[in-house]
């Protein structure tokens, strides 16, 4: 990889092909269907190639394919808008190992009729490149408008070259990486930085009722009003959790909790401890189906430090209880009476806390991606909508709309 190659990729003379927005959307949906088809070779190739760099198990890569391309196949393309000068040439700097935001970014660029240079992340060099390859099967001219490359972050001269030719720059990553790319971006280019975020969930009438009363809401509704036919996660009374723990475990386990929509904490209104026990069982069931990936020593050590600290505490403090899977400890559920939001070490370590206040979330203002809630109804949704970019039912946290 050298600067000439990168300059060629971003400054390629290719004119965006004559396509109506509808035709582009159609091509993208067709491509998504290639991935979702039975015995899809694209799915098979992703599973074979992505496990190692992403660190996900093969079953999790398989789940990622389904989630990403179902979202694309069902996308509302009208939501993909852009104000101001059209972004003729976009440089995308991707991050992390969750494929959906990367694929969405590429699709957005195409829907805006832009030529795209994509720097894939070290953690996922597979999905963006394979996606463009599959698009080529459907619409080769459209695929010509995307070049996916990878170079190390330390090669700032290459990054600078990639940014120099763009009139729009889209960056994903932690705050430090976003800031460092911004510093390299020429002033004339429009810059969009998407930093890392956290998510959490609130469970139960009592929790939401508490929150409504503490924020001047109108109080809770009766449980039967709030049953959600869409997810079946409503009516979360402690004696009748239904499939709520399963949905919660799904939210917490998908992408091994590394997505910014992965919850760190479940705040629970009544009988949080009972919910934690049920969640632990559901985490184990999910692990049996879709195992967590293999952790690096650093990640495993980080989790071990948290686990051992809470194991010691739980021996002497009735306000703490911990459940873990058998070594290599593929999941951990920690019940803690202290209601302060505790960011997780990730990789399927989830906190369950009783809710008494959400004051501790103030420190995270502007950094909250998704709040999952159960039960799901207009009132419960409105009660927390000011907290986050997105509020959704528990069980849907990892299914955001493609262009939401």
């Amino acid at each position: 990889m050298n600067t000439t190659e990168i300059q060629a990729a971003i400054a390629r003379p290719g004119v965006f092909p004559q396509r109506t927005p509808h035709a582009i959307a159609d091509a993208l949906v067709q491509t998504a269907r290639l991935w979702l088809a039975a015995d899809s070779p694209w799915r098979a190739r992703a599973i074979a190639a992505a496990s190692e760099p992403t660190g996900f198990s093969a079953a999790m890569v398989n789940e990622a394919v389904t989630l990403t391309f179902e979202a694309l196949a069902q996308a509302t393309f009208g939501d993909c808008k852009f104000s101001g000068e059209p972004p003729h040439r976009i440089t995308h700097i991707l991050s992390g190992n969750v494929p959906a935001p990367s694929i969405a970014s590429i699709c957005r660029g195409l829907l805006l009729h832009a030529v795209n240079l994509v720097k894939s992340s070290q953690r996922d060099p597979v999905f963006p490149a394979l996606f463009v390859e599959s698009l080529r099967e459907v619409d080769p001219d459209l695929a010509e408008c995307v070049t996916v490359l990878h170079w190390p972050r330390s090669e700032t001269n290459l990054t600078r070259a990639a940014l120099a030719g763009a009139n729009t720059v889209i960056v994903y990553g932690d705050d430090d990486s976003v800031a460092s790319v911004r510093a390299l971006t020429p002033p004339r280019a429009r810059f969009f930085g998407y930093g890392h975020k956290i998510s959490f969930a609130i469970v139960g009438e009592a929790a939401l009722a508490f929150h409504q009363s503490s924020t001047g809401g109108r109080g809770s509704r009766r449980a039967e009003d709030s049953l959600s036919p869409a997810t079946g996660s409503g009516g979360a009374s402690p004696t009748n959790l239904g499939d709520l723990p399963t949905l919660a475990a799904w939210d917490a386990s998908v992408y091994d909790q590394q997505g910014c929509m992965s919850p760190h904490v479940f705040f629970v209104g009544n009988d949080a401890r009972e919910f934690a026990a049920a969640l632990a069982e559901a985490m184990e069931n999910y692990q049996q189906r879709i195992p967590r990936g293999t952790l690096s020593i650093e990640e495993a050590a980080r989790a071990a430090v948290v686990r051992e600290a809470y194991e010691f505490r739980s021996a002497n403090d009735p306000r703490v209880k911990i459940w873990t899977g058998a070594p290599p400890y593929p999941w951990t559920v920690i019940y803690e009476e202290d209601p302060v939001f505790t960011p997780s070490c990730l990789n399927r370590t989830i906190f369950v806390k009783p809710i008494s206040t959400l004051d501790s979330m103030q420190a995270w203002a502007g950094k909250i991606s998704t709040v999952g809630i159960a039960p799901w109804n207009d009132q419960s949704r409105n009660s927390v909508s000011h907290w986050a970019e997105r509020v959704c039912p528990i069980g849907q946290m990892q299914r955001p709309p493609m262009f939401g």
Partner: protein
Amino acid sequence: MAIDLQQRIRAFLAGGSDNFAELALEVFAFQCANNPIYRAYCERQPAPVRSWKAIPAVPTSAFKDFPIACFPLPEAVAEFHTSGTTREKAGKHYFKTLELYEAAIRPNFEQHLLVGPASPSTLLGTLSLSKGRLSIVDTGVTEVDRRDACPTSLPVLALTPSPKEAPHSSLAHMLGVVGGSDCEFFVEQDTLLLERLTHRLCEMQWANQPVLLLGTAFAFVHLFDHLGNTRFELPEGSRAMETGGFKGRSRAVTKPELYQLFTRQLGIPAHRIVNEYGMTELSTQFYDATLRHGSPTDHKDVPPWSRILIMDPRTGQESPLGERGLIRVFDLANLWSSQCIQTEDLGIAHADGTFEVLGRVANAEVRGCSLNAESFRKE
């Protein structure tokens, strides 16, 4: 039982031979019997303890939440605190007596800082020639017989507060023990006295007097930033001990960068700089074998009364030699608190019995796009 154990360990620290494995199991029985907090934790362990390696470790975080002590707290003669942040409680290590703590410090420090095979004449010569002006250590709080005190002919300049100024700092206390009454401390009211220290270094250089510098890595970085283009050539035989990380205290530099600064700014070569690995929750420190070997090394010696196990965080079992894992320390001098501490540091054990410290788990790289606990702390 406690007094017998204390005497046996005291003799072990003083260079006597003993059976570590047997002693550790006796200390385990003692600590289980006398610390209900630890006992409750041990009772939850799946397997009975039959060998010292199976003794349950107390995580360092437990020192923040519980008194880890085998005696009633009002009897404590000292307590050392970890540097808690605004978001975190400080951990506390209570001492019923400082006898074992201080006894563990001296021989180990001497073997790693007051030797110098690279130019033995310098230090040993100085030691014998200068007996007339040897200072006798006065630790202020010690119960140790003055005859045991660690003499040194090298003036000791510590870039830390004095034990009096920082009574809850284990590092200040330790340097007080090794530095003795002549030791000068250059931190007052949380401020590094840079002018005074620079002046002192100047005097030492002109008097051709080798010195022993002790301090945290970040204090040294402050000094080097302050010195700028000012360079010292401290006399041959001068040496330095640096310890600790940089957490939020100064710009972070790597160990090779730091050692280059020592050489460039002070004239102390890498083979006379020793890294110390110690923590508030322990009584024993671990030093690079640099001065003992006469060449720079990251390998740390393990004194006879302690053991290092590297634990694989994925299995909870001991890691093979040469593989990375979490450092677990056994320290018999921690008789009255906990002899087995699970640290949050990654390390590697080597076949020759030494080990390396690779750094805090918290600083390790994370995957994914979710903010996590560590990035929150960073802000």
